[in-house]
């Protein structure tokens, strides 16, 4: 294993009853400061991947190596150590803090459980809050007395209390308005640099990925559709799904707006995967082959992998037209 790899996920599978939520996902996260973006719609399995990495849902198969240790076999003290090293920040800021517990107590509790002397707790809590760009005086407040952005910062401060090396950020800003989102992302970016953190950023919004992530993986129905360095993946997607995700990002500047690809139908999470490429029922570029043959994830350019029969054409500039995408397609700028 390369020295710069912190977490290596190979062929991960997770089942919920008859539904295979994650189906052969492989990811690599480097030592910090480093960020990997895991992008997909609701039902793509992105949250499940994050939870499987943290051992919060059982894996049905595959391997997860964290600094060389087999995560899926960790038990007892070693599992506890792993759970300190890898922390989760949830989307739902309203429910990730106990409403009856003051913010300072919520963070202090973590410190005490992990063995910090009580006398030192108050100072440490204040330091953690400042690190997350919060006024230490907020320690005496209850969660409902904070704004959504402040609550998310408090949750980040609590995650930092055990000095993790990996942060799994599951839609950390999607409950926030864009102003609060920008501030929280800037804080995470600063912490990433100061603490040398590795981040796994789970999101449906491609636009927030460049802020934190050098590398991006796009997930569709439990499989990787495309992966590569964020800048090159966003500049020239190799998978039609990435094209669609990119086109869905709203743009302030009319000159920069792209033709919007509307994906009909939404992700269908069912026990039965579509034949051939799972994306073909919604794909505006699907050809006959896509309906019968499952595309393997393969190298399509230096550092880039995609699971699409037409990846080379898409990379070379193939785009859906109104004719191939039907009435749901709208060309821009309008």
């Amino acid at each position, binding site marked *: 294993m390369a020295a710069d790899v912190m977490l290596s996920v190979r062929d991960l599978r997770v089942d919920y009853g008859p539904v295979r939520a994650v189906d052969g996902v492989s990811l690599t996260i480097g030592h910090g400061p480093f960020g990997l973006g895991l992008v997909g*719609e*609701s039902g793509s399995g992105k949250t499940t991947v994050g939870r499987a990495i943290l051992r919060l849902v059982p894996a049905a198969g595959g391997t997860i190596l964290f600094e060389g240790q087999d995560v899926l076999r960790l038990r007892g003290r070693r599992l506890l150590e792993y759970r300190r090293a890898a922390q989760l920040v949830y989307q739902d800021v309203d429910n990730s803090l106990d409403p009856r517990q003051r913010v300072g107590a919520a963070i202090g509790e973590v410190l005490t459980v992990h063995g910090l002397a009580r006398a030192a707790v108050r100072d440490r809590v204040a330091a953690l809050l400042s690190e997350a760009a919060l006024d230490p005086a907020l320690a005496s407040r209850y969660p409902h007395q904070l*704004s*959504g952005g402040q609550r998310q910062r408090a949750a980040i401060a609590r995650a930092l209390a055990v000095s993790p090396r990996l942060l799994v950020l599951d839609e950390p800003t999607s409950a926030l*308005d*864009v*102003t*609060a*989102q*920008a501030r929280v*992302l800037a804080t995470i970016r600063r912490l990433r640099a100061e603490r040398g953190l590795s981040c796994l950023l789970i999101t*449906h*919004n*491609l*636009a*927030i990925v*460049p*802020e934190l992530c050098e590398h991006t993986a796009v997930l569709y129905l439990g499989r990787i559709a495309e992966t590569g360095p*964020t*800048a090159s993946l*966003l500049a020239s997607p190799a998978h039609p799904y990435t094209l*669609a*995700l*990119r*086109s*869905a*990002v*709203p*743009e*302030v*500047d*009319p000159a920069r*707006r792209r033709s*919007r690809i*509307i*994906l*009909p139908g*939404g992700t269908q999470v069912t026990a039965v995967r579509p034949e051939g490429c799972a994306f073909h029922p919604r794909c505006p570029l699907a050809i006959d082959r896509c309906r019968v043959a499952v595309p393997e994830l393969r190298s399509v350019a230096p550092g880039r992998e995609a699971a699409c029969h037409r990846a080379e054409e898409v990379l070379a500039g193939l785009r859906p037209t109104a004719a191939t995408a039907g009435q*749901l397609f*709208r060309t821009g700028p309008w």
Partner: protein
Amino acid sequence: MKLQIRDLRVLFGDRLAASVTALDVGAGEIVGLAGESGSGKSMTIQAVLGLAGTAGATVTGSIRLDGTELTGLSPAALRAVRGRRIAAIFQSPASAFNPVFRVGVIVTRALRLHGLSAAEARDRAAAAMRSVLLPPELLRRYPAQLSGGQLQRVAIALAIALRAEVLLADEPTSALDVTVQAEVLELLRELRDTRGMAILFVSHDLAVIAELCDRVAIMRSGRVIEQGPTQEVIAAPQQDYTRELLAAVPRLDG
């Protein structure tokens, strides 16, 4: 003017929740109301719906629909307007539908309350579902059996079925995936263009406003601080706060 707001003030005690001096929404027009949480956008919508008073606020000023004053209407007169002529969709479509009823029951009941026969209500609900690109069979599902995007479209279908002239949309896409958001925005444009609906669209995201709205009003701490044609406000914002909102929009090129 379809919807005309003048000197609207919403007060909780002596605390000003929203103050809108002048805001118009014409037929076939989408007007954006932008600002952070707590800026008074939603309270403005609640006032137009006649719900701010119910929440304990004092509402003064004028809200006119086609020239007819809505403030001070009796509850019965207001009910005839709200829902039928002025429809609303909200951030969380799941909480807009009673979870124990099939969505079709909720939709047809609303239509019957506004005077349609059972057969008319069924037909119109099915037609409205098709116009939001959903199969009418989904009306037999319970809210929990539909996705967030589907539920939001059912909520829009209800507005269409009622032949609403004004649609108040309070952060209707903030809880949705960007791909689903793109679909819903497309649908709202269609309502404007083909049905001539007047839409008041509330959002914290200026990128969404920029893509959708013909005009925009920026709100901060309860007050409208800037308004104008969207392209002009975006290209040459007059207020620092508007520039801050613009700078906060995440960009694909980092």
